[in-house]
């Protein structure tokens, strides 16, 4: 019977899930990004679950670019970490997958309760410019920015309005593809969080 089960396991059906972006080590990462935190809760959301096709199209319009690839489908599960201090939310952590020039990147943002970026980092990055893009100097440029600063970013033409605070973000390298990918990933992350968390809170 054990042999038979082994055969069944070997030849049997398989179940699969869509690609998401979880923190590598949530306990460690939450504490590192929010040293005052006393806990966190994890929520798995998808555009399909929150608002369906209309929201998907609305978010695509807000991004100013078509969603593409298996990591940007309507059913992709996003993991939102709500960071707590004595039971009250003090911030959020959320990561997204973004296609880079040489491989996938995971753009993780730590936000305060108003949606302002507290921390930016690449959880995963394959790039010839990886060292420069991972440097704290680059990440620190995102601190204090929010969706308001990224909303007008033209993803297709890689252009910020001059008055945008985000326009000051400097590319640390001469190569532009991965820099632009990082900006697109950040904008997408902020749009998702706006719809998953901040707009939902506003409605309550």
């Amino acid at each position, binding site marked *: 019977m054990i*042999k*038979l089960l*082994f*055969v*069944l396991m*070997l*030849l049997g059906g*398989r179940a*699969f899930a869509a*690609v998401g972006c979880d923190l*590598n080590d949530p306990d460690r990462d939450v504490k590192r990004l929010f040293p005052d935190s006393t806990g966190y809760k994890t929520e798995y959301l998808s555009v399909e679950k929150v608002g369906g096709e209309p929201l998907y199209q609305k978010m695509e319009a807000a991004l100013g670019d078509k969603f593409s*690839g*298996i*990591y940007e489908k309507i059913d992709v599960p996003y993991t939102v970490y709500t960071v707590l201090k004595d039971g009250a939310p003090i911030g959020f952590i959320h990561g997204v*997958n*973004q*296609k*880079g*020039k*040489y*491989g*996938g990147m995971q753009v993780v943002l730590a936000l305060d309760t108003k949606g302002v970026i507290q921390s930016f*980092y690449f*959880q*995963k*990055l*394959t*790039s*010839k410019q*990886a*060292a420069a893009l*991972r440097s704290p100097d680059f990440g620190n440029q995102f601190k204090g920015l929010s969706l308001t600063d990224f909303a007008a970013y033209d993803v297709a033409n890689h252009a910020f309005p001059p008055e945008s605070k985000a326009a000051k973000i400097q590319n640390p390298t001469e190569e532009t593809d991965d820099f632009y990918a990082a900006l697109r990933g950040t904008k997408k992350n902020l749009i998702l969080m706006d719809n998953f968390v901040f707009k939902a809170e506003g409605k309550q």
Partner: protein
Amino acid sequence: MNLLTLAFKNLERRKLRTAFTIVGIALSSWVLVTLLGFNQGYKNALNRDIEGMGFQIVLTAKGCPYEAATLMLKGGTGLRYMPESLYPEIQNAPEVAQTTPMIMHAEFDPYKGENGGTTVFLGIDAATYPAMKPYFKFLSGGWFSAPNAREIVMGYEAAELEQREVGDAYLLPGSEQEFTVAGILQRTGTQDDGMIFLPLQTLQETFNKKGVLTMIGIRLKNDVNTADFEGQLYKIPDVQVVSMAQVRNTIVSLVTSAKIIVMSVAAIAFLIAVFGVLNTVLMSVFERYQEIGILKSMGALPKHIFMLIWTETVLLCASGSLAGIAFSYLFASVSERLIRAFLPFAPHGNLIELTPNLLIFSFLAITLTGIFGGLLPAIKAAKIRPLEAIRSENT
């Protein structure tokens, strides 16, 4: 009136009896054809599943962590190599059906994750490797354009993680070397989903591993005893044998058990058919005792009577056999569904294979049964004495 017409007319006179006899033979024939078809289909389906498992034996250098998962746990260290010159020796062994050489390489990527990580590459021979993994299907693209192409094929999860599409560039971790994505595989549910494949030669050149291999995948011929062959492989110094023998032997024993059961049931169905025909025709002869006597008194010779009864038997068997074959053909999918519902383990693919050869064999077998089964009643009828037979009606 010839013998065949007379036989037809005789059968036609007793419509109900003839119909029941034909139905009886048809049912036996149906069971026989379905069981033989199942025996063939089940065996073939299991063999396909065995082949779908990929290699039955993997030969690696002694102590080599040949699995990607183990390799990652060990941080990409500990890989051992065997000389590539060993490959032709294995390839040409008479027991071997197929072989494929492989080389594995683990590269530490300092920018993978926050603290870096290991990416595992598998160098394969695109001419022999796909045949060992018949379940591989491309989501997009295909295998490498040349044995030394600077191209990669990605497993589904590797492509998902790296967000690569066919034609995209791929940066070899820790280096400035760029490769192009030639193909992305569909999910397989195995560790291959997370693998990045390179042409064997390219990997050997890129990572300075010329003339060495990590593994040789081996598939044996179906009748080969895996354990015996493994014994031969162990004689090669400094190699280890990773075998799927237990799984293969389990499947082979399943096939053998199924064959014995199926052939036993088929034999019973066959015997039922023989005795059914014998009984029916004998009954018919006894019923027509007086009639046969009259025929003889009118000048019919014993050989005419013999041929008449024999022809009737053969006609009954041939038509019953044809009806049974038609039933088995028409209801094959229903039979398969029933078998699947009852079997604890059913392999993928068609479980009942009704090939022309099998159908011809079944038809001939049942008809021959009629020919032999009809001998006794025909001899008995030929031996009937006319006077005795006519008198018997009066008594």
